[in-house]
């Protein structure tokens, strides 16, 4: 999939998050959304009147709130403004970033605020996910989106001990990152010394997928503000972070697709291969300084690192084992703690570029990577293995790369 020259460059100039938690009884949906919007405006040093357009997204059937942007407009600040509501399931948050990028790049809007939210406590998450299945056929067979097939494939490929240790090492690494992020939902204080215990005793869900491996169910919202290069030149409160390119790869629904093992080429690999090729990135591991990956489970995360970085064989396991993905490693993964720590679904995929942008700015606080972050990768995941992948940059220095 080719891309033509972007009409104009687009920067992230504001980021606002709520904290993430299993319960927010003291806020209704609007108030939770508004908290993120106000934080983003404060971060950008803007007033609501500076925003030209709002882009909203979440998943209707979790909260069972039809066209929720209409009510949420009280908190998004959409009154009197242009507004779009765009959704793609789990990838929604990342799709909103793509949409905001498109809207600003098009020249139709100057400054756009995107908001992703979910209040999973208000709904039934598993029921909502089961509702994804075809009502004629699969809905009676399916419970949520759990599978142990990836674990089994990794065990088959790398041996039981090594595969299980890899998944648990990733899981504990995520918790260590989450412990540094005060907004994260699940912060357990796990230690690598607990690896054996967790591998044996964490309640099994499906096959070798255990409760400890799975992502959380959270309440929370994330808002981001985007503007054009022309506006950035007039000055921004915080350093701008540039959206260099983004790509979306969807696929048909089948149950094997939902669980990802029906490859010829995994969507993640297709997205990464195409995106890196058209941006002239030969060696993604060397190029990127951080990767915020949508990691719904530790098993999937480990498996997907191979796909996203276009690695082969056990390269990804060797890197994991060598600590390359740690916060002080060569290419840190999810300094925020990732989806395993915090998962307000409609905001989850937006948190990836949001956290990646904070790393580039050097504003991530306790979970800031120590070395300079110039190039960041962020991914979203949803549907039947749908992928969004985007490249964020500290400087506008990729222009010499030939696009078209």
């Amino acid at each position: 999939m080719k891309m033509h020259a972007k009409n104009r460059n687009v920067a992230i100039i504001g980021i606002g998050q709520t904290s993430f938690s299993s319960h927010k009884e003291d806020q209704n949906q609007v108030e939770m959304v508004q908290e993120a919007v106000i934080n983003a405006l404060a971060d950008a040093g803007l007033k609501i009147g500076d925003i030209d357009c709002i882009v909203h997204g979440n998943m209707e059937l979790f909260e069972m709130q039809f066209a929720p942007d209409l009510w949420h407009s009280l908190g998004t600040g959409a009154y009197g403004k242009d507004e779009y509501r765009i959704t793609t399931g789990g990838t929604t948050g990342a799709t909103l970033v793509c949409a905001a990028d498109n809207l600003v790049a098009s020249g139709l809007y100057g400054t756009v605020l995107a908001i992703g939210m979910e209040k999973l406590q208000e709904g039934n998450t598993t029921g909502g996910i089961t509702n994804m299945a075809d009502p004629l056929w699969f809905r009676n067979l399916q419970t949520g989106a759990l599978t142990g097939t990836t674990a089994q494939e990794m065990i088959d490929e790398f041996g039981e001990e090594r595969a299980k240790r890899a998944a648990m090492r990733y899981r504990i690494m995520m918790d260590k990152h989450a412990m540094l992020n005060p907004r994260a939902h699940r912060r357990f204080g796990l230690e690598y010394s607990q690896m054996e215990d967790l591998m044996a005793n964490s309640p099994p869900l499906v096959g070798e997928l255990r409760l400890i491996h799975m992502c959380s169910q959270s309440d929370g919202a994330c808002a981001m503000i985007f503007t054009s290069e022309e506006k950035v030149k007039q000055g921004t409160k915080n350093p701008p972070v540039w959206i260099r390119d983004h790509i979306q790869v969807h696929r048909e629904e089948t149950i094997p697709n939902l669980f990802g093992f029906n490859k010829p080429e995994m969507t993640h690999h297709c997205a990464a291969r195409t995106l890196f090729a058209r941006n002239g990135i030969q060696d993604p591991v060397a190029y990127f300084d951080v990767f915020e990956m949508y990691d719904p489970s530790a098993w999937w995360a480990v498996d997907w690192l191979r796909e996203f970085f276009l690695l082969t064989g056990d390269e990804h396991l060797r890197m994991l084992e060598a600590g390359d993905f740690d916060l002080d490693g060569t290419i840190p993964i999810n300094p925020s703690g990732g989806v395993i720590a915090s998962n307000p679904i409609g905001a989850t995929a937006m948190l990836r570029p949001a956290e990646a942008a904070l790393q580039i700015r050097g504003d991530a606080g306790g979970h800031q990577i120590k070395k300079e972050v110039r190039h960041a990768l962020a991914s979203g995941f949803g549907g039947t293995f749908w992928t969004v992948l985007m490249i964020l940059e500290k400087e506008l220095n990729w222009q010499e790369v030939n696009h078209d």
Partner: protein
Amino acid sequence: MTMQEDHKDCFVLEGKMALPNQYFAGRLGSRFLIAIRDRKKIMGLKCNQCGKTFVPPREYCEKCWTKIADNWVELGTEGELVNFTVVRYGDRHLPKKPPYILGQIRLDGADTPLVHIVEGIDPREVESGIRVKAVFAAKTTNTIMDIDHFEPV
């Protein structure tokens, strides 16, 4: 698209989409609803910037983008019916059996009319401008229906 299709294998599968939910009114909404439930009082929120008093509650005046969450004002439990319709169709989501009057009631002290049900007057005789008062519900639902309906003063 005039393709003639064979319908012999087509049928309709009866089903249902149903999910349990638990909604939270939030701290502000809870104070508003508890005032109705426990104290039979209807509270509004006033924006000091534009001077308007709003009901139902919201944290911000969206036009001024000013926080009004703590600026409670007690409204009257009476007001003026400023607009109405007569609901004559039946549907599961409706709180009353048709026909009934659904109105917009501007409570004394409020700038924004509240949508609620009006009873105690024949739908053929109702007209805008009449004074109505809140009749509080005997059984609480922790919603705006803790005002059961309004009726002419």
